[in-house]
């Protein structure tokens, strides 16, 4: 990485957060991948050797948070990067950590996903910060993402509290020009000093709860002095309060409207720097609060107005003009202003006077050659008579929900497939229940659920879709891969041994691309009375090249379309000449086995 202070470079928001952490001199970085946060650790892992800190993909977010906290207990600086749902997993540790505190700076970079683009919920981490009583900062640009992250370590040390930096998809996955700051080398001489303050007993919690409340006031003062909250003086009797990426939309929407109100740009949505906000509120007849997702700032503004008996209008989510839902953009923010201010909306002239034709959707789809497709097919065949319930989980394989595969009847959360299947089985005793879970997800949150199956004598079949990577988030390694985050060899977890160690007696490993063997393996697992596990192991098709492809021999094809209906492979398509295999064929060959007329043949080279 470029080390020269003052150099201007193009950086993604997530890379900028990583750079900020390196400039702050971190000793430890820990993470579990999750869109849109994954590139923070991806970047930190790449720089770890150059700058001499420890970087790791942890087994899950709770482990990552506790690991970083342990390091920060010694006085060292540490960062945890995760997505909003990852914070749910880590929440047990984080809630208590707010009471215990830290010695060295501890920053949680939690990426939210308004939209949502790649998440199960549209939850707002700023609410979590309010709940946990942890300061939270929200960058509006890549430059700010870097500067805030660096500053957050100082705040964390000043308050002895973990600090949350909360980018959103649109700041995590946006690029901007960033001026680099100086890099601090991590110190080497930190040590843990024994003290009763590190043991969270109820008597200590009662005392620390009061201290934690006092720290909120301290945080407000430090935030007020920070460079991340500012006032841009305007000319109207109304003012705008905004934060994060919304600030950018506000600036451009106002430019389009030709208006110049005072803007209070907030970089620290909780706790809000009261005095700064009051300064703007006292001079305005109306305050418009524009923030994505929940009314975190708005609630604090309303409380401030009430406490100070201010006579002014406050427009936002509680008055109904500003949405709580989805991602904002310039047009949406412009329309919020138009509604609040009673301006008739103005649309730009379209590029064409004609109505655009209807365009078919293009959702993401399981890749051609994906081995999950073969596993889904085999279990469908094996379970044909009994109509099993397929409980899915979080990963690429969630895409198997779509027709024609329809291989996921439920999907809830990381590791939830195994336990939902178990819950269903307690009520539907005569029906097979199958839980699909990826290798990375199994190691993250599937082991406890599997142990519960054993302990409580469940009749559930767990299928570990082992493609030897964390594919959906960008092919990160995990404990089952044999590689560390920084690319060094690592002990490889043996899934079969783990499952047997948990007490599962019926365990089989199979290559899903061998369809016949997989159907038979699936049959044995479904026939077994008690918990059973099938490990369906084949490398992710994006990580290998099979160097072969297939075609449909017209002379033998009966046009039954079973290949299309049963596999849903994007390479098997309809054309004017009937069903054909396109040049995107990855060569897995599972269609060869299922063709009833043996019309699918290998292309000879």
């Amino acid at each position, binding site marked *: 990485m470029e080390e020269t202070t003052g150099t201007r470079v193009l950086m993604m928001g997530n890379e900028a957060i990583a750079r900020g952490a390196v400039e702050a001199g971190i000793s430890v970085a820990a993470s579990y991948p999750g869109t849109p946060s994954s590139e923070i650790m991806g970047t930190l892992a790449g720089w770890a050797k150059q700058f001499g800190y420890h970087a790791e993909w942890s087994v899950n977010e709770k482990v990552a948070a506790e690991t970083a906290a342990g390091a920060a207990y010694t006085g060292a600086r540490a960062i945890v990067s995760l997505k909003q749902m990852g914070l749910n997993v880590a929440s047990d540790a984080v809630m208590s950590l707010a009471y215990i505190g830290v010695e060295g700076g501890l920053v949680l970079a939690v990426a939210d996903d308004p939209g949502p683009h790649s998440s199960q919920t549209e939850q707002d981490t700023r609410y979590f910060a309010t709940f946990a009583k942890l300061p939270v900062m929200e960058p509006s640009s890549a430059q700010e993402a870097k500067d805030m992250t660096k500053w957050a370590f100082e705040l964390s040390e000043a308050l002895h509290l973990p600090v949350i930096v909360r980018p959103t998809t649109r700041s995590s996955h*946006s690029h901007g020009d960033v001026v680099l700051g100086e890099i601090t080398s991590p110190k080497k001489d930190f040590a843990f000093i024994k003290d009763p303050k590190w043991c969270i007993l109820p008597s200590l919690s009662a005392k620390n709860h009061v201290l934690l409340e006092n720290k909120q006031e301290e945080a407000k003062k430090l935030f007020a002095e920070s460079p991340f909250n500012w006032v841009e003086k305007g000319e109207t009797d109304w003012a705008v309060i905004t934060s994060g990426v919304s600030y950018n*939309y506000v600036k*451009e929407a106002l430019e389009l409207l030709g208006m110049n109100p005072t803007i209070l740009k907030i970089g620290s949505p909780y706790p809000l720097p009261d005095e700064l906000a009051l300064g703007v509120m006292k001079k305005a007849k109306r305050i418009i609060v524009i923030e994505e997702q929940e009314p975190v700032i708005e609630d604090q503004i309303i409380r401030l107005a009430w406490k100070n008996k201010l006579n002014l209008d406050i427009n936002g989510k509680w008055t109904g003009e500003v949405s709580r839902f989805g991602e904002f*953009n310039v047009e949406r923010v412009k329309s919020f202003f138009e509604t609040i201010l009673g301006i008739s909306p103005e649309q730009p002239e379209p*590029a064409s006077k004609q109505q655009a*034709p209807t365009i078919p959707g293009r*959702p*993401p789809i399981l890749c051609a050659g994906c081995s999950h497709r073969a596993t889904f097919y085999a279990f469908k065949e094996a379970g044909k008579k009994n109509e099993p319930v397929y409980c899915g989980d979080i990963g690429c394989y969630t895409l198997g929900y779509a027709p024609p595969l329809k291989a996921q009847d439920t999907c809830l959360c990381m590791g939830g497939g195994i336990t939902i299947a178990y819950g269903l089985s307690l009520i539907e005793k005569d029906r097979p229940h199958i839980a699909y879970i990826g290798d990375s997800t199994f190691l993250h949150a599937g082991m406890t659920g599997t142990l519960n199956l054993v302990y409580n004598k469940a009749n559930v079949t767990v299928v570990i879709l082992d493609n030897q990577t964390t594919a*959906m988030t960008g092919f990160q390694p995990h404990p089952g891969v044999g590689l560390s985050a920084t690319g060094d060899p690592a002990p490889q977890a043996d899934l079969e041994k783990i499952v047997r160690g948990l007490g599962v007696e019926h365990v089989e490993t199979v290559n899903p691309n061998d369809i016949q063997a997989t159907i038979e393996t699936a049959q044995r697992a479904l026939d077994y009375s008690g918990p059973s596990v099938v490990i369906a192991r084949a490398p992710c098709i994006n990580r290998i090249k099979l160097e072969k492809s297939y075609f449909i021999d017209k002379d033998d094809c009966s046009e039954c379309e079973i290949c*299309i209906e049963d596999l849903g492979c994007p390479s098997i398509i309809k054309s004017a000449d009937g069903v054909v295999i396109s040049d995107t064929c990855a060569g897995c060959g599972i269609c060869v086995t299922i063709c009833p007329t043996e019309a699918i043949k290998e292309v000879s080279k």
Partner: protein
Amino acid sequence: MKYSLVLTGVGGQGTILASRAISLAAMEKGYMIRSTETLGMAQRGGSVISHIRFGDEVYSPIVPSGQADALLGFDLIEAVRWVSLLKKGGAALINKALIPPYEVLIGESHFNEDEAKQFLDSLAADNVIFDMTSLAVEAGNYRATNAVLLGAFSIKGGSPLEPELLEKVMLGLIPQKLTDINKKAFELGQKAVS
């Protein structure tokens, strides 16, 4: 000065490299930059879009409706999907080749190519649709489609980025052994619109 463009395509087509080349070229010119792109699961063969904005002062990384100075389409269908972002009279450079979405491939949905082309022809824009994929194949590899597109953009995009600068930055982003193919593809793209 403020310049906005969108690149649209299908996950895996190289939109990210093209968008990076344009952003880096704008960087070299000293402009303020904001860009954003589709990442994560949506990339698995799904519809993807990159927004790039640069100038003396830019804020939103997302191009507002009707404000794109250029619409660069790696795929005919994806160009039509995002056409509402294009400004009246803006440049539209669109690959004639297309990847049919899966629902069309299996006959569950329909797409009328002629209707789409006729619509794109109606744009009040400097509108160029040509087969970029074939030109990339002619240059040596279909993966060089992004270089063809960049070449065309360097001439017809109406941006303040010089063709020489764009070419230099693009070549800096690809492995050296592919320089010749991409250089040729860039030139074929330029020729196609000259």
